[in-house]
C-alpha cells in the first residue's frame, strides 16, 4: 500500500512525465534532441513518404455548352446582314436584327424570338435622307445579378462569371419583357441580364434619346463619359441633376458631333456603383449613308452588324470590356434584403481604399467561360477592330501573344496615323478606351503566324480568379484553321476541361492534376502509422497523457485537503 502511494506521489509522477516526454521526442525525431544523433547510431531506416491521394473523379463538363449552334451562321433578317460568329454561345441573330432595325420596325415573329420590350429601341425618321433613321430612342433598365432572396439561400437572378462563382453585380440592360429568371424553378438570369452593361452604339449626328428606367432599388443616373452632350445631361448629382429614384425615369438627349469609342456609367456613389458594374461601352459610329448600327451588343464581344464606317477598313469588330470585382463590396448585396442596411454597408462601412480586387472579367466572364463567348477568331491578312474599355480601378496591361496591334485611337479621338504606335502590351488607364487594329499579316511584327494565341492582362493578379490561375481575364486569339466543331480552339497544350469544375477555383484540385499522369504533383495523402517506432510513440503518448491527468488529480486533491484542514482549524 505505502509503496503504491509513493509510486503515484506528485514528485514521482513529475519525473516519469519528463522522462517519458523525452522518450517520445526521441522516438519522433532524435535529431530534435541532438543534431548529430545519427552519427553515433547509424542512419535511420528508410521510411516511405505518404502516397498521393487518388485523382479526383471529376464530372466531365462539356467545354462548349452550346444551346443554339445554328445561330453561328451568317443571317439576313429583315434586310439586315448579320455576320457569322464562331462563339460557342453566339448572340441571338434575331435580337441583333431587332437592335439594328429597332424593336418598332421588326415584325412580330422576330420580336417574339427575343425577350425585348417593344419600346426598347425605337428608330424613326430619316431626317438627312441618307437611308438610315436619325431619331433614336433607347431604353435601359438597371438589373441586379446574384442578389438576395428573403425566401431562400439561392441567389436571384443567378449569374456565373466562372464555374461556381457568383458575385453580386448591377448592370444596365436593354429594356426587356417577361421574367428576369429562366422560369420559377431555374433562378438563372435570362440572357439579357448579364455582365457587362451592354455596349450601346449610335450614329454621329443622330437625335438620341437615352431613357434610364430605374428598375433597381437604389438611385442611379447615367453619365455619358466622353460622348458629346450638353451640361444639362451630364448625369452628375453634385452638378447638374437629381437622382433618378427607384420606379423613376431620366431622359438624356444628345446629338453627338464626334465619333469614337466612349463610355457610360452611373454617377451616383461612383466608387460603389461603378464597381458594382454600372459601366459600359458607348460607341458613336461615323455618319455614313445606309448606316444601321447595332444599338446594343449584349455581352459585348463580336459585333455581328458592324457599322459602315468600320467595314470600310475592317473585316470584323469586337468590343472588349475589362472589369474587376472586389467581393467584399459586390457580395454585400447578398447579406441583407433590406435596402437601408445595404445602403449603409455599401456607402458608409465598405471602404474602397482598403479594397482589393478578387475577380477579373473580360466581357462579363472569367476564364474558362471567356472561351465560350470571347474568343477573337481571325483569318490571316485580316484587319480586326478591337474596342477596349478598362472598367477596373487599376491600369490594364493588355498583352496579345504573337501579335503587335496598332493603337488607332485613345478615348474616341484618332491618333495621327504617322504617330500611331504598334506594340504588344497596351496600357489602358481606368475608364480609358483604346481602339486597336489587329492586323494578322504574318510578317514577324503584326503577327508571328497562325495558331492559338493567348490574350490577357499582364498585371499577373488579373490572370487569376481570387488568386487561382488560370482564371481572370484570359482569352485567346484563334486562327480559324484551329477552330474545331465545338467552337473551341484545338490546341497542342493541355486539356482545359479541368478548369470547368468549380472545385478547381475553390483550390480543391491539384494544379496539374489532369496533365500529370505520373502523379508527381498530386495532393499528398495523410501520413499513416508504418513503423514499430511510431507504434511505440503513440503508446508512450498515451501513457504520458495518463500521467498528466493523474498529476492534475493529485495536485487538485492536495489543494482541496489543504483548505479543508484550514477550515477545520477555524
Amino acid at each position: 500500500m505505502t509503496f503504491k502511494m509513493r509510486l503515484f506521489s506528485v514528485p514521482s509522477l513529475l519525473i516519469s512525465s519528463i522522462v517519458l516526454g523525452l522518450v517520445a521526442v526521441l522516438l519522433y525525431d532524435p535529431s530534435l534532441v541532438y543534431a548529430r544523433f545519427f552519427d553515433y547510431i547509424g542512419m535511420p531506416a528508410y521510411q516511405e513518404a505518404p502516397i498521393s491521394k487518388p485523382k479526383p473523379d471529376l464530372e466531365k463538363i462539356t467545354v462548349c455548352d452550346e444551346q443554339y449552334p445554328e445561330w453561328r451562321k451568317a443571317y439576313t433578317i429583315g434586310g439586315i446582314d448579320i455576320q457569322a460568329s464562331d462563339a460557342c454561345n453566339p448572340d441571338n441573330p434575331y435580337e441583333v436584327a431587332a437592335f439594328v432595325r429597332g424593336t418598332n420596325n421588326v415584325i412580330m415573329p422576330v420580336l417574339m424570338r427575343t425577350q425585348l420590350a417593344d419600346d426598347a429601341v425605337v428608330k424613326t425618321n430619316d431626317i438627312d435622307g441618307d437611308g438610315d433613321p436619325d431619331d433614336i430612342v433607347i431604353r435601359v433598365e438597371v438589373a441586379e445579378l446574384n442578389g438576395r432572396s428573403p425566401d431562400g439561400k439561392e441567389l436571384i437572378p443567378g449569374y456565373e462569371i466562372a464555374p461556381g462563382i457568383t458575385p453580386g453585380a448591377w448592370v444596365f440592360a436593354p429594356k426587356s419583357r417577361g421574367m428576369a429568371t429562366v422560369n420559377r424553378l431555374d433562378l438563372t438570369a435570362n440572357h439579357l441580364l448579364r455582365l457587362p452593361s451592354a455596349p450601346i452604339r449610335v450614329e454621329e449626328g443622330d437625335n438620341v434619346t437615352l431613357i434610364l428606367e430605374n428598375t433597381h432599388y437604389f438611385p442611379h443616373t447615367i453619365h455619358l463619359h466622353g460622348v458629346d452632350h450638353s451640361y444639362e445631361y451630364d448625369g452628375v448629382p453634385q452638378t447638374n441633376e437629381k437622382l433618378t429614384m427607384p420606379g423613376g425615369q431620366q431622359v438624356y438627349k444628345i446629338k453627338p458631333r464626334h465619333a469614337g469609342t466612349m463610355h457610360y456609367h452611373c454617377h451616383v456613389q461612383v466608387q460603389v456603383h461603378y464597381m458594382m458594374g454600372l459601366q459600359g461601352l458607348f460607341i458613336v459610329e461615323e455618319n455614313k449613308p445606309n448606316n444601321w448600327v447595332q444599338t446594343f451588343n449584349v455581352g459585348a464581344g463580336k459585333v455581328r452588324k458592324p457599322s459602315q464606317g468600320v467595314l470600310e477598313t475592317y473585316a470584323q469588330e469586337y468590343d472588349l470590356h475589362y472589369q474587376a470585382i472586389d467581393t467584399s463590396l459586390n457580395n454585400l448585396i447578398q447579406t441583407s434584403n433590406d435596402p437601408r442596411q445595404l445602403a449603409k454597408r455599401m456607402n458608409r462601412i465598405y471602404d474602397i481604399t482598403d479594397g482589393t480586387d478578387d475577380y477579373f472579367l473580360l466581357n462579363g466572364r472569367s476564364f474558362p467561360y471567356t472561351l465560350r463567348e470571347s474568343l477573337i477568331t481571325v483569318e490571316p491578312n485580316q484587319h480586326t477592330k478591337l474596342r477596349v474599355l478598362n472598367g477596373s480601378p487599376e491600369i490594364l496591361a493588355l498583352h496579345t501573344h504573337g501579335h503587335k496591334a496598332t493603337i488607332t485611337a485613345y478615348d474616341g479621338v484618332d491618333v495621327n496615323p504617322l504617330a500611331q504606335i504598334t506594340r504588344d502590351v497596351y496600357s489602358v488607364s481606368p475608364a480609358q478606351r483604346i481602339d486597336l487594329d489587329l492586323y494578322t499579316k504574318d510578317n514577324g511584327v503584326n503577327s508571328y503566324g497562325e495558331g492559338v494565341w493567348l490574350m490577357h492582362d499582364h498585371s499577373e493578379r488579373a490572370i487569376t480568379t481570387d488568386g487561382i490561375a488560370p482564371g481572370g481575364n484570359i482569352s485567346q486569339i484563334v486562327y480559324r484553321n484551329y477552330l474545331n466543331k465545338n467552337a473551341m480552339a484545338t490546341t497542342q497544350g493541355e486539356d482545359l476541361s479541368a478548369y470547368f469544375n468549380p472545385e478547381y477555383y475553390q483550390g480543391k484540385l491539384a494544379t496539374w492534376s489532369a496533365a500529370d499522369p505520373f502523379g508527381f504533383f498530386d495532393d499528398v495523402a495523410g501520413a499513416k502509422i508504418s513503423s514499430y517506432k511510431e507504434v511505440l510513440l503513440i503508446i508512450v503518448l498515451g501513457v504520458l497523457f495518463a500521467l498528466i491527468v493523474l498529476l492534475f488529480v493529485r495536485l487538485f486533491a492536495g489543494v482541496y485537503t489543504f483548505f479543508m484542514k484550514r477550515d477545520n482549524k477555524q
Partner: protein
Amino acid sequence: MIKRSGLLLIALLSLATASQASMRMGDWGMVMNENSQQLPQGCDSIASEQSITVKAGREYAKAFPGTIFGYDQHTFSFPRCTRVTVNFINEDQIRHQFMIHGLPTYLHPQGMFHMELYGEGEVQGTFITPNTEETYLAHCDVAQHMEKGMKAQVKVGGGNGDLPSIPGVSGQLNKDRYPLDLGVQNMLLISLLFLLGFAGCLFLYRRNKK
C-alpha cells in the same frame, strides 16, 4: 446554366403559335395566357364573376419598411370556378408585372397568367379560378422586385395557407438580422423581462427546497 435560358425563348415561341394560348402585346406592355372561356376541370360552369383592381408602384412600399416596390393589396381571395377580371394599374415610370404562377397548365402554358405594363398605365386581363383550395403566388418578376416587396398571394377557395415574405402577412424564411435598439425604453423592457425569468427560476428553486 446558360443552356436553360433558351427555354423561355422556346416557350414564348410555342405560345405564339399555340392556339389556346392568348397573347396581347404592344408598346404598352403585354397580357399573356389569359383565359376567359375555358372551364377548369371540375367546374360545371362559371360560378361567379369578380373584378379587382391591382395597383403597383413604389408608393405602396411606404407601409412596409425595408421594401421599395409594392402592390396596394397583397392578398386576394376568390371562390372556386370564378371568372376574375384583373384591372392592373402601374403608377411608376418603369416596368411592372402582375404574374400569377402555378395555375393549371392545360389552361395557362407554364401555369402562368402574366400581365405586364412597360410604364405608367392600365390594362385588363381575365382568368378563371380552378376548382381547388390553393394559394397561388402573384408577383412582379422584374429583377429583385418580388424580393423588394412586389409579392402577393391569390387564395382560391380559401387557399392552403400563406406564402412566405408577403408584406404585412408572413415572415422571411431567409431572415434579415438587425442590431438591437439601445434606447432606454427598449433596454428597460429587455432588462425587466430578463429579470422576470431569472427571479422566477430562483423563486421556484427555493420553494422546492422547503
